[in-house]
């Protein structure tokens, strides 16, 4: 039983590390700001979730698992919020993504006050 948990935990941790590295590679490889945001969100979602699940399996039924779960919940809420804030700041300052051929980007209707 413990061997199964151990193997599963390592599988999760390795997969999480893989996605974190993929996210980092994506940040370097992608051409501009907007696409890089998407690369960052790989590490933030898949990398974070898999690593936390893997560490929970390592810790077993202890207080550490509770703390890891609380960290996970907070990251789950704050991660996308922070990404949204960065993207919104870029939009407000007038940065627009390079649209693909044949597509016209929507413009924000209301200019943000303040």
């Amino acid at each position, binding site marked *: 039983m413990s061997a199964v948990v151990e193997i599963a935990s390592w599988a999760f941790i390795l997969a999480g590390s893989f996605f974190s590295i993929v996210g980092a590679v994506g940040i370097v490889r992608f051409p501009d700001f*907007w696409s890089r945001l998407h690369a960052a*969100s*790989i590490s933030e979602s*898949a990398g974070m979730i898999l690593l936390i699940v893997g560490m929970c399996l390592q810790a077993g039924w202890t207080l550490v698992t509770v703390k890891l779960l609380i960290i996970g919940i907070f990251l789950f809420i704050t991660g996308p919020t922070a*990404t949204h804030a960065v993207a919104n700041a870029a939009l407000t300052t007038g940065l627009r993504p390079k*649209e693909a051929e044949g597509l016209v980007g*929507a413009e924000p209707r209301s200019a943000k006050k303040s």
Partner: protein
Amino acid sequence: MRTIGAAAGLAVLWLLMSGVYKPLVIGFGAVSVLIAVYVSRRMDAVDGNRIQLALKPFVFLGYFIWLLGEIAKANWAVTKIVLSPTMTLRQHLFLTSYSQKTDLGQVIFANSITLTPGTISVEVEEGEFLVHAVNFCDEDLDALAEMDRRVSTTEAVPS
């Protein structure tokens, strides 16, 4: 009633976080819970701004599991783009409408859009979100409409 609930919640949080069950440490915990409850009661007298969680818990749990599956699929799609030698990007900024009534529902929908790699919610408009997709295809619109519908089912609209 709310005060007792808050105190109990804070005490449980303290016990879970500390993990050291000596009289001195538990005493510190009790004192800090009392201070926190006292301060929040005083603030409540000034600021009666209460947060209401208008959610159906079990439906939300089902939605959460569905969302994890979507995150897995979307992650794999973006990972393939990152690792492919050519990196074909099809960036697009588009509007998608939301049907949630409560602020919390809208936040859940917007955060779900951002959590699934490949789409980021950029701006909140009247009845619509401005969404950026890194590799846009027409199915994205259907997928977002599906997500919108599912988020709306988790809402318990206050009457």
